[in-house]
């Protein structure tokens, strides 16, 4: 039984209902009201619905059915090489593949698709290069994680998602995951936080961003790869910046990062509500609705295979 305030329950119920409504007949969900379904928007919508399943008001609202159908749609559109394209069924990069893996794992569906996706994922490697002389304050370019597109450098978000996917499938000890975790830690910015993946530019510290910070924290938690003292600065950064954050994307992932480490922000509910209302046409956007759901409840980290405990996080096997 949820103990969330009534307004959160109402917001979640409305968002769930909207998500189910806008998917009908489209396979998955899109970034924009007019757009074609995308793997990421679909995956996040599924995870949002799964995370808030216990908050359905009254009878079933069709969320599980929609999630199952969307998970099946992702599997049906999977490429022969195991990747899932940005817009499934069309050519394009496969960085959303780990998001599909997480959905299949958490929904308990399409295991064979998940296996194929993992094989593809393990075959992808971010491009490395020797460290340039005199750039010891920049990130370690010899570490490999995952990239946005093939044969390019590794970046925080694709790497963090790959770690989440592998963790959901019990592959935390895989050497690729271990290197990816090393990479994530290396890309942390002095003073706390992460951005897209550059910690210094021309010997000046880069600025962190809430969303990559939250995602990196989520990944480190999922893989048991850090202690609280390792992430204290980043948690402090989020608690400082999120009250001033304006975009739902930053809020969502920032809050998920905090929640993964059993931290809460008192003003979270108000901030989420305000940013959602400020986003144009959010009620028709799978991208916004899914992130509204994921940011509305601390328990949402369960959608990524994490369970909150007092001071530790435990990865639940699929």
């Amino acid at each position, binding site marked *: 039984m949820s103990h969330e305030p009534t307004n959160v329950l109402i917001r979640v119920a409305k968002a769930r209902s909207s998500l189910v409504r806008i998917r009908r007949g489209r396979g998955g969900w899109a970034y924009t009201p007019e757009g074609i379904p995308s793997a990421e928007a679909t995956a996040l919508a599924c995870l949002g619905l799964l995370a808030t399943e216990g908050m359905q008001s009254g009878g079933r609202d069709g969320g599980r059915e929609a999630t199952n159908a969307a998970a099946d749609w992702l599997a049906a559109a999977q490429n022969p090489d195991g990747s899932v394209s940005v817009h499934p069924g069309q050519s394009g990069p496969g960085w959303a593949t780990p998001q599909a893996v997480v959905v299949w794992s958490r929904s308990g569906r399409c295991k064979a698709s998940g296996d194929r996706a993992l094989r593809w994922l393990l075959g992808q490697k971010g491009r490395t*290069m020797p460290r340039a002389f005199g750039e010891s304050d920049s990130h370690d370019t010899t570490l490999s994680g995952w990239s946005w597109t093939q044969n390019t450098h590794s970046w925080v978000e694709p790497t963090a998602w790959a770690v989440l996917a592998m963790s959901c499938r019990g592959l935390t000890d895989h050497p690729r995951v271990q290197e990816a975790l090393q990479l994530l830690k290396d890309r942390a910015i002095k003073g706390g936080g992460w951005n897209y993946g550059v910690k210094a530019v021309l010997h000046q510290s880069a600025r962190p961003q809430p969303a990559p910070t939250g995602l990196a924290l989520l990944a480190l938690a999922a893989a048991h790869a850090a202690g609280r003292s390792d992430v204290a600065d980043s948690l402090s950064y989020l608690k400082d910046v999120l009250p001033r954050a304006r975009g739902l994307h930053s809020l969502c992932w920032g809050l998920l990062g905090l929640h993964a480490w059993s931290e809460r922000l008192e003003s979270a509910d108000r901030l989420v509500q305000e940013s959602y209302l*400020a986003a144009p046409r959010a009620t028709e956007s799978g991208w916004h609705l899914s992130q509204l759901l994921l940011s509305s409840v601390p328990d949402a980290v369960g959608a990524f295979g994490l369970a909150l405990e007092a001071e530790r996080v435990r990865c639940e096997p699929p």
Partner: protein
Amino acid sequence: MLMGAAAAGGVGALWAFREGGPQASVFVGSADSYEDDLATVVRLGLTELGFKPDRFEGRSVLLKPNLVDPVGAESHANTHPNLIASIVDVFRRWGAKEVIIGEGQGLSRDTDSLLETSGYGRLFKELGVKFVDLNFDDVTPLKNAANYTSLGRFYLPRTLVEADIVVSVPKLKTHHWAGASLSAKNLFGVLPGVYYGWPKNVLHWAGIDRSILDLACLVRPQLSIVDGIIGMEGDGPLMGAPKHLGAVVIGRDPFSVDATAARLMDLDPSRLPYLKEAAGRLGAVAAGRIRQVGERVDALRSPFRLPRNLSGGGTLY
């Protein structure tokens, strides 16, 4: 030298071709601040270049400004909202069916935050103008015709492909890899991040200068309007210092516009590899090939401090 199909295959200049090489007209307007009557400057420039209202009447116009990760309330990294508002005003008065603003910022996925902190969100609401986050737009794959890079195709956003007129509205800035970030470099921001990443790393690996050329040849903005009222010098395009120049540069040929903007920065265009390649092949770059109207370049020219590593050094990821 950068070789591509456009040069080797004799595709020829994309803009006005005259015997002896391309020629183009570029307007340089003067504006001391963003509180000046920028609509008049823009309208004057377009008129001097031979544009008439019927060119825009009934047509959809996509403006592509330079909007980057928020760097503060008075950001000199972004095209100023007042200039955008003025351009919107001119095109609307000239009967454009629709004026849309589109941008695919390269370093952050949170466009809502960017719009809020940059002042653009408020502006768009006041103007009633539609903004499209090109990073998440549906795409149309198009063959790379110029082939300066090995990228076989580009995925262009539907909003851009469907627009009747595309206008590049960059901020005039130095750039620590390309030398300067002007109209052509601004086109990196049309590419959706969902296909190119955050950052759009694949363009770096393909070669920044080559990518600039490929994109400029493919997108072919019909107009460029450079915000050089306050530009950026030093470690651009994000970490440089503001520098007042007081100029708005307008033209059809983005290479001519960029060459003129570079001269205003007291930067020899031939120091920018993409302009050196474009000269005489893709657009008019040499001063003798550009019909200069409006203010004289000499009257506004002011040396911009260049990035520390313009001559090389530092890692391109």
